[in-house]
């Protein structure tokens, strides 16, 4: 299991390219075969395939071959990692302040 930081590094790297972002946006609407994904782009198929490989390697998409057609699908988990980092920080601070409030109320009781 790669560390969270490593996953994020790869995700951000994968997102740092307009073609790959377009592909992800397209896959956000549902799975699609490679030929359909390649259609809007003016590039040779091998170059396009490389972009797909980058996305697949970092886990943002996965593909499955059915007969002669390879169908790609979005895998939202790594994208979630970027969001999760903030959630972890929030949880830490919420817990900290819950404890502070409990402590303050106990201090107030003592003063009475």
């Amino acid at each position, binding site marked *: 299991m790669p560390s969270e930081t490593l996953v994020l590094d790869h995700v951000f790297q994968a997102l740092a390219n307009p073609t790959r972002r377009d592909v992800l946006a397209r896959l956000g609407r549902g799975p699609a075969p490679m030929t359909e994904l390649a259609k809007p782009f003016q590039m040779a198929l091998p170059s396009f395939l490389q972009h797909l490989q980058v996305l697949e390697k970092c886990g943002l998409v996965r593909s499955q071959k059915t007969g002669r057609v390879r169908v790609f699908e979005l895998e939202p988990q790594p994208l979630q990692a970027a969001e999760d980092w903030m959630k972890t920080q929030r949880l830490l*601070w919420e817990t900290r*302040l819950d404890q502070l409030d409990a402590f303050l109320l106990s201090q107030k009781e003592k003063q009475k």
Partner: protein
Amino acid sequence: MTNTIKHQPDPRLDLVLERVIDVPKELVWKAWTTPDQILQWFTPAPWKTVECEIDLRPGGAFKTVFQSPEGDKTDNEGCFLEIIENEKLVWTSVMAGGYRPLATPVVEGCDNLAFTAVITMEAAGDGTKYTALVIHGDPESKKKHEEMGFHDGWGAALDQLVELVKKQLVG
């Protein structure tokens, strides 16, 4: 207070937590600035704060030692930046006492712990309204993006993708 900075939180990177509690603000201030009291609440359970050193002045050290449930200890250096008694307390984890810059603390599994915290408190009726603003850098991505000459746009791109993914998960 007139010369103090106005903070503009970045919702992508910063946390704003606001609480109203039925105790006078002097008690809230004490809880944040007295080592004995910090030990009693500062670290989310089951972790504990086992040591705390506070030199309450700008540039003064704010040091804590955390202990995990397994007994492993972690030193946390910090430095106070701004102190207005009973009103505002600012410290950062990116410097130690005396404003000495620290190597970016990266802990496996906890990611990057670089932050600046701004605690403000004001009277609200008989109680206190206090706010914790936690300012983060862009630990995972900023350097990478600058290396790639890719400053703007990624935030929006990521937001859109996350939105798309969420829609897909619902749909």
